[in-house]
């Protein structure tokens, strides 16, 4: 049983009112949330400091233009906290960044929600999203997987936030009538009290949540099975042969925080003579080189922290299912170290610790 603030309004309206009140009562210095932007049915993340601007906020909209963790890690220095409304995988990614000294949890009041997944980019162009919303919210309410969401969302088991100060309960709830905010920390309780309505003790819709988790697991096995046949170097050549080397996957990856990737640095520029001698020994070479090596390098650097947010697939101009591949590999590498990305901010990233006994299976 958790402390809970129930607002008798739709989930999105209730949350918006709550956020607005936080800002009005000066509990937070700003709100970081999804909002409507521009005139073309576009959405972006906005930092709102003026309550007037709350009219554009759509904190629960199923869309992820960027993984918010990337943006939150740009915020350095502290004042009063900022309330942020982010998805569970964005929060997990941010926890991974905090472990890498790329962010700070304390400066935020983190609000997350039981997440029904986000629409694919292609499903949201030209106002298509508005039409799909009723079906989406119906699915969320009844604990079903929706169509048009990212593949990795359909396969995501970690849709209940792990670290939030406040969880908005959506899966299995009457979201058109009620907004249930679960308060997990003292900070959250204090802020909720400022809203001026009594708190109660409640429970989340755990049965529906469990049912959805089972569906998601089945979907995950299905996706993994599909790429299973393309294991090994030959498989990678099949999958990544069409990679254009734009490294868009790395740019939007919340875990890949390097300001300059090795693969884009001078380290990976070959002397012309070296390429020539390689050509002489092989008869033919692909240029630019290192197409597969880049993927392997990235996998080895970040796969155990992969949260399966799916940004990489969304931005791939060559339509490579990058996220499914990375999620599949990430799950296996993380399991090797009993690690779950974003679970615990105290849990060290496997590559940063030395254990005398680990990877014993490799010896066999």
């Amino acid at each position: 049983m958790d402390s809970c603030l129930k607002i008798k309004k739709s989930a999105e309206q209730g949350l918006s009112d709550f956020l607005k009140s936080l800002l009005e009562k000066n509990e937070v210095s700003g709100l970081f949330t999804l909002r409507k932007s521009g005139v073309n049915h576009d959405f972006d993340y906005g930092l709102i400091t003026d309550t007037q601007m709350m009219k554009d906020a759509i904190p629960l909209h199923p869309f992820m233009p960027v993984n918010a963790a990337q943006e939150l890690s740009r915020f350095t220095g502290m004042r009063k906290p900022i309330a942020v409304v982010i998805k569970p995988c964005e929060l997990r990614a941010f926890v991974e960044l905090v472990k890498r000294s790329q962010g700070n949890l304390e400066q935020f009041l983190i609000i997350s929600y039981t997440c029904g997944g986000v629409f694919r980019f292609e499903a949201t162009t030209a106002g298509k999203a508005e039409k799909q919303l009723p079906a989406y919210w119906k699915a969320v309410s009844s604990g079903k997987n929706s169509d048009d969401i990212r593949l990795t969302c359909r396969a995501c088991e970690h849709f209940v936030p792990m670290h939030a100060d406040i969880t908005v309960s959506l899966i299995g709830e009457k979201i058109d009538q009620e907004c249930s905010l679960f308060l997990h920390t003292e900070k959250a309780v204090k802020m909720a009290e400022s809203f001026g309505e009594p708190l109660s003790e409640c429970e989340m819709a755990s049965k529906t949540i469990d049912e959805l988790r089972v569906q998601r697991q089945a979907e995950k096995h299905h996706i993994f099975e599909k790429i299973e046949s393309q294991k090994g170097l030959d498989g990678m050549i099949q999958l990544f042969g069409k990679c254009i080397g734009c490294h868009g996957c790395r740019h939007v990856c919340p875990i890949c925080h390097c300001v300059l990737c090795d693969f884009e640095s001078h380290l990976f520029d070959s002397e012309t003579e070296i390429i020539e001698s390689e050509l002489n020994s092989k008869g033919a070479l692909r240029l630019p080189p290192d197409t597969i090596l880049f993927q392997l390098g990235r996998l080895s650097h970040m796969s155990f922290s992969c949260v399966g947010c799916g940004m990489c697939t969304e931005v791939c101009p060559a339509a490579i299912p990058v996220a499914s591949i990375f999620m599949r590999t990430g799950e296996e590498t993380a399991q090797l170290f009993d690690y779950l990305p974003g679970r615990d901010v105290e849990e060290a990233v496997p590559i940063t610790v030395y254990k005398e006994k680990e990877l014993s299976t490799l010896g066999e």
Partner: protein
Amino acid sequence: MTINISKGASLPIKEGIEKTILVFLKSLLEDKIFDGILIPMRVPAGDSYAWILVKDSLILDKANPLAPVMPVQGAKALKSLTRKGKGNLKFAAVMRPCEIRASVELAKLNQVHLENITLMSVDCPGALPLSDYTQNPQKGEERFKTLLSGENWGDDSTKPVCQVCDHFSLLPSADFHFGLLTGQAKTLLLIAGSQKGEQILSTHKLSASVSLADWKKRVDERTKNKKKQRADRFREVQKQVEGFDGLLQVFSSCIGCHNCQSACPICYCRQCYFDSEVSKLDLDFILQKAERRGSLSFPLDKRMFHVGRMSHMSLSCVSCGLCSDACPVSIPVAEVFSYVADQTQHTFEYKAGEDRDADLPIQQYRLDEIKGIEKWVRKAEEVES
């Protein structure tokens, strides 16, 4: 710029244009005129093309001098080969005209070394949008075949910038050219554009004895048409993007992934300013910025990025369309950039990638330039007073 070449050699077409060009290239390898050829090849899965530097003439059989798509700009492949120096071997690069132009621009920017490279171009029918091709490669192959053999080059199955491309044929900066617009299916033309090109013909005992008048007429006619279409299209683009609001609107769905910059052959910076540490800002500073307007959009500087990129590379933009291909949210980046590039290049009487000896406007100082600006300044002063 007009080209003063009046004659070329002719080559009978056997088993299709691609095969004929390949057989010719193969003989260049076997005769040791080149140590390798940079050319597109279909990837093993058959769902796209990649640049391959080929030495082994047997492997060359699998290449395709006329790939339906341009997943990676040829100038980028050339950059990865020669960024650090000219090397010792001699290579030919078989590319589309816009790839030659980008290579010439990169050479001026010291990112490509052309001393040992022979730039070979083909009359280009345009390229298909990458996403159309990857969705259904087989259909893409068929569509391109129809395009190549038909009269409607640059039709609406090609990329928007290809539809209005007026640089689809031999450029003054190319060493060698395969003329396809001969008006008949039996022969193609081999045209030497430089001494390097002439050497190919002479060591191959081919004489430049065929008049190019007919081919030139066809190219000129098509160029004229395309110039008109380009002007028409860009008038529409102008309406869409002009002014601050237009610019905001056209890039309003941008997610800041910078794919356009990564795919652009001209943007060669290893680390864009907009990806640098500068993008990390103090929270107080961000809040102050937000408080001034009530809210602040993230990622920061999404639109500023495009304006910055434009000011850095538009003088060298070759309208290849790679930026649009790479955009995950379907912003018509290439059309906007091409439109602006035409204006900026016109202002400096510069044409990207055409003349190897013309200095980049940003690399030189002229006492007498951008006269148009004086007019704008005067106008602005009048408005103020």
